[in-house]
């Protein structure tokens, strides 16, 4: 199993969620994060003093998937979240050794 972690622009969340639901993904965990990347924050003035907002609000999705559909999920996210502009975000894939569904105690692919 894989854990797919995607950092996307917040306003793409709804689209991405729908797109991966369409390919059968039932579970996602979403976190509000602040991102620091090539896209730079903006400079603001507050009472005449400069004020750099370095971090940009981003949304992190975590999706545990079975090995065989990982590729498809990555592509779907990538296609849906792309605007072509800087700051579109990244997808990270890491190995997952075990998954447990708390309600039933099921484990492995069953539990994803």
């Amino acid at each position, binding site marked *: 199993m894989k854990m797919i972690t995607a950092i996307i622009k*917040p*306003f793409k969340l709804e689209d991405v969620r729908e797109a991966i639901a369409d390919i059968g993904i039932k579970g996602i965990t979403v976190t*509000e994060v*602040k991102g620091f990347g090539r896209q730079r924050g*903006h400079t*603001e*003035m*507050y009472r005449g003093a400069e004020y750099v907002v370095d971090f940009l*609000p981003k949304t992190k999705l975590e999706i545990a998937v079975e090995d065989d559909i990982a590729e498809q999920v990555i592509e779907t996210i990538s296609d849906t979240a792309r605007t072509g502009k800087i700051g579109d975000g990244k997808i990270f894939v890491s190995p997952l050794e075990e998954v447990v569904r708390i309600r039933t105690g099921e484990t492995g692919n069953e539990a994803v």
Partner: protein
Amino acid sequence: MEALTQLTSQVSEISYALDTFYFLVMGALVMWMAAGFTMLESGLVRAKNTAEILTKNVGLYSIACIMYMLCGYSIMYPGGDFQGGVFNALANIGILGKTDNELGAVVAGDSYYSGLSDFFFQVVFVATAMSIVSGAVAERMKLWSFFAFAIVLTGFIYPIQGFWKWGDGWLNVMGFQDFAGSGVVHLCGAAAALAGVLLLGARKGKYGKSGEIKAIPGCNLPLATIGTLILWLGWFGFNGGSQLQVTGVENANAVALIFVNTNMAAAGGLIAAMLLSRLWFGKADLTMLLNGALAGLVAITAEPLTPAPLAATAIGAIGGIIVVLAIVTFDKLRIDDPVGAISVHGVVGVWGLLAVPLTNADAKFSVQLIGMLSILAWVFITSLIVWMVLKYTLGIRISEQEEYEGIDLHECGVEAYPEFATPE
């Protein structure tokens, strides 16, 4: 005998002072309504547009005061004995430029309160009308175009129709009844707002592709609630001060009745909206209750003096029903009004005007209808023209990107809640 003359003069002075003081206190309460609109609107928009709506509200109040001083008051009350002083202030900056009533005229019974207190009371009314617009166009209009519109509305559009009724113009002569301004103030503001909203379009994301209506919840309901309660309090000044005089048993009784009726109408509106909302939606939607209370207040404003308290409660309650229906209907029509201002002040303003003949024998339904339509047509059409001009010059709508990120960052450069809400 001389003692008696002197005493008479002294009594006139006290009476003049009491009426002036009453006027100023009532005016201060109406000024406080500016805070009410500010809080109500800032509670009903999203966090990312809050600093801008605050800016709009304090800015429009200031603009209204300045424009009304410069020309609005003179346009609205051309025959008055005071406006000259204010208007001429332009030519007499400094020590000169203000004349108020003199003792002789007061004792002779020609004037019973300070002309400047009248100006103060009137000026805070203009700001109220303009505040109505601010909520309806929230979350998507350019700040500076809004201010440009404020200049025209408060300096010209409002005073002209105000003159028709309160400046003793043709509507007044015809017998049109609008005690404290369901039409002159509230419908006026709502008509200007409607014109703006139609040109502006709905907020991005308010209506789905497949036509569904999406809720965009307000971010801070305690603020919306204190805003409503401020307006409720301020309305005692709005209606109570419109009796224009408190001295004399009849006047004092009238002001007391107005206070009672104003309060009862708000209570009636709130309860009616609450029950309807419970029956219809299954929940006591707080924002509907608040709109219901305001609807009750708008409804009674056209005539707070002739109904008995129970009738006032009923007039307010019908306002509360109407406002819920109107809000849902406007949403179905895809007329996006984030705070319900057009429903509260416009639709219920119409109800207020048309309800006057129910309790006031001097009012005629036909005349009320003419008055209502005249105000609506005048304000809507002139506003539409001004909005149009703005649309093709400064532009009235912010860019999609700006709307997404929030107007606050783009127009005000500050966030309203930098530590609490993450801008999207």
